């Protein structure tokens, strides 16, 4: 596994401190994590780093020691301007951008607002659209009984176990749980209570070739949304991942990494 550098950036008139985990070597790739923070996605990110320099920023508010950073951003306009600043600070020029779930919508909105800033776009089970006949579940208020099989096709599998696992050390346990909950709070600020904030009006502005990856058994956002995204984005294609839920990159990291790498030509 490639060595990982953690760079701490001060942004947004010094009101947001954020860590960016940088690993690998090759063409730049930005990875935007989902509502549960960067921690569950690290193994997947490491896989992407084989052939890319991966930049994985933590969402505002989810960097240790700076939870209140989330109060510095009020709306989607703030958020897209913020990501412009982040990309500039990292001196990124039209990198590939991969986003999962909530991170997928951030990636898509950024690609729509600054079409020349994203070279290629990968959206893994993104939020952002709504159909009354296929409502998206609010992942922040699900019982354990519903949440587990909604997130994972195999709710008793290794990926699900690892995702919900908490350390036995009491202090580490509290920290892990607090981060897991707070990451949902921070991302939830931009998608509560329904993750439809007008992306369908912006989608036509995406210029980057786009790959849409969807877990065929996603119980949070039904896979019909894959086509909903694809038909709104000019140059888009869809890859369904069998036997995977809302977190296909955790349940079947090899399969997801393979389609992503093929798409990126790496």
């Amino acid at each position: 596994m490639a060595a990982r550098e953690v760079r701490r950036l001060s942004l947004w008139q010094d009101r947001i401190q954020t860590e960016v985990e940088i690993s690998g070597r090759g063409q730049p790739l930005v990875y935007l994590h989902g509502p549960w923070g960067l921690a569950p996605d690290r193994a997947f990110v490491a896989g992407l780093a084989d052939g890319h320099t991966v930049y994985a920023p933590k969402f505002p508010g989810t960097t240790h020691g700076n939870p209140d950073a989330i109060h510095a951003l009020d709306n989607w306009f703030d958020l897209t301007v913020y990501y412009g600043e982040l990309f500039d600070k990292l001196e990124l020029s039209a990198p590939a951008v991969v986003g999962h779930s909530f991170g997928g919508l951030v990636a898509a909105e950024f690609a729509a607002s600054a079409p020349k800033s994203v070279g290629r776009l990968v959206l893994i089970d993104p939020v952002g659209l709504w159909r009354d006949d296929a409502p998206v579940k609010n992942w922040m208020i699900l019982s354990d009984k519903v949440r587990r099989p909604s997130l994972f096709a195999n709710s008793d599998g290794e990926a699900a176990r690892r995702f919900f696992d908490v350390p036995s050390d009491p202090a580490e346990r509290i920290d892990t749980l607090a981060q897991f909950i707070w990451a949902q709070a921070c991302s939830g600020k931009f998608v509560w209570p329904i993750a439809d904030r007008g992306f369908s009006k912006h989608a036509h502005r995406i210029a980057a070739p786009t790959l849409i990856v969807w877990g065929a058994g996603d119980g949070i956002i039904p896979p019909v949304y894959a086509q909903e995204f694809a038909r709104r984005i000019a140059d888009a294609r869809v890859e369904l991942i069998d036997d995977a839920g809302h977190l296909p990159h955790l349940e079947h990291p090899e399969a997801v990494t393979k389609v992503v790498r093929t798409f990126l030509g790496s």
Partner: protein
Amino acid sequence: MFHLMPYRDLPADFERLYNSAYIDPVWFDVADSDKVGQFYNATLDEMLYAAKAGLHGLCTNQHHQNVYGFMANPSIMGAVLARQTNGQNIAIIQLGSTLPSTTPPTRIAEEYAMLDCISGGRLVAGFPTGLPADATISNGVIPVEQRERFREALALVIKAWSARDIFAWNGRHYQLGMVNLWPRPIQQPHPPIWIPGSGISSTAEYVVGQDHCFCHLSYYGAKNAEQVSDRYWELVARKGRDDNPYRFSFLQLIGVGETDREAEELYAEHAEYFFHKLLYTPTYYQAIPGCLEYEALVQSLRHNPRASINLRELKAKDLFDRGFVVVGSPKTVREQLLDGIKRLRMGHLLALLHFGSMPTALCKKNIDLFAREVLPHLADLWDDTYEDRWWPERLKAKRPAAALATAS
């Protein structure tokens, strides 16, 4: 007297049908609008009865989409109570309208000012942040914004009540170009402000910082609240505030009978109804990510004493023994309440004299016994040493002896 206005006639198998009192129960499967009309009226009757019996205040509250209590707009109830109690020495305690879920919050400033005018300056202005499910699910407030909206809204309301000139409010959550509130409250610069909370979090810090009255709305009794009250009084001392007990209010379920045995028999089914059916809300509707600020979240993960209690497994006897409900003869209730009042340094006791499926006749008996046999022994407790700075000025001269005399 505090009243929740619950649904009093849930199906016997409600617990089997629903895992939550909040959000999930489907109206047309469970409830009946004609019955609910009776319940609203019964609630008003019971509260007005309490006013005549000599209690000092009537508390309403705001909740949504649940069976546990649904005064969706407490100002509507408060308006009836204010009007019907004119001439009586009783406070109208709105505890109250939830600011973060009302836009613009000046709407609440107006409603409260109306209530203060109608009641002749008897309003206590309560401002809850709102239960997570109420604010974020029923009203769509973004969880992580709930508390900052609350603070901004309250600052706006207070300014709107007392500003001499028309002003512009350029806030983060609210923007109003010309604020010139009609009417203004009789009580200037503002009525006493009470703010409820279920524990010592950032809200309690804020309340003490602003010198408002903090109301600990626990349903687990004074017997189990010492940890919260200790932390509250430590906070008060740390912030350099005085130890005036009137800056602390506490809610208690109370059931008074002629004897201990009679009381236990009379209130058992209603206590079980309350804790098994009405209060049962699962964690995923309470601990919604963002409703607690980060520090408070860490604290709650460190220490959550009730996390392991399954209320539905507790029988009435357990609920009484654990002190969740103070039940017994007047003597027993007096002793237990006095002990709690002193231990917690409670200035205002919010007596929940109606709970669960209790019918009006029993509620009135409870009110009668409480007002006649218990209240006279509790009132005046702190008055030699402390002034209640969180009580309507116009009522102070008359309470409590005069109020009791009126009732007799």
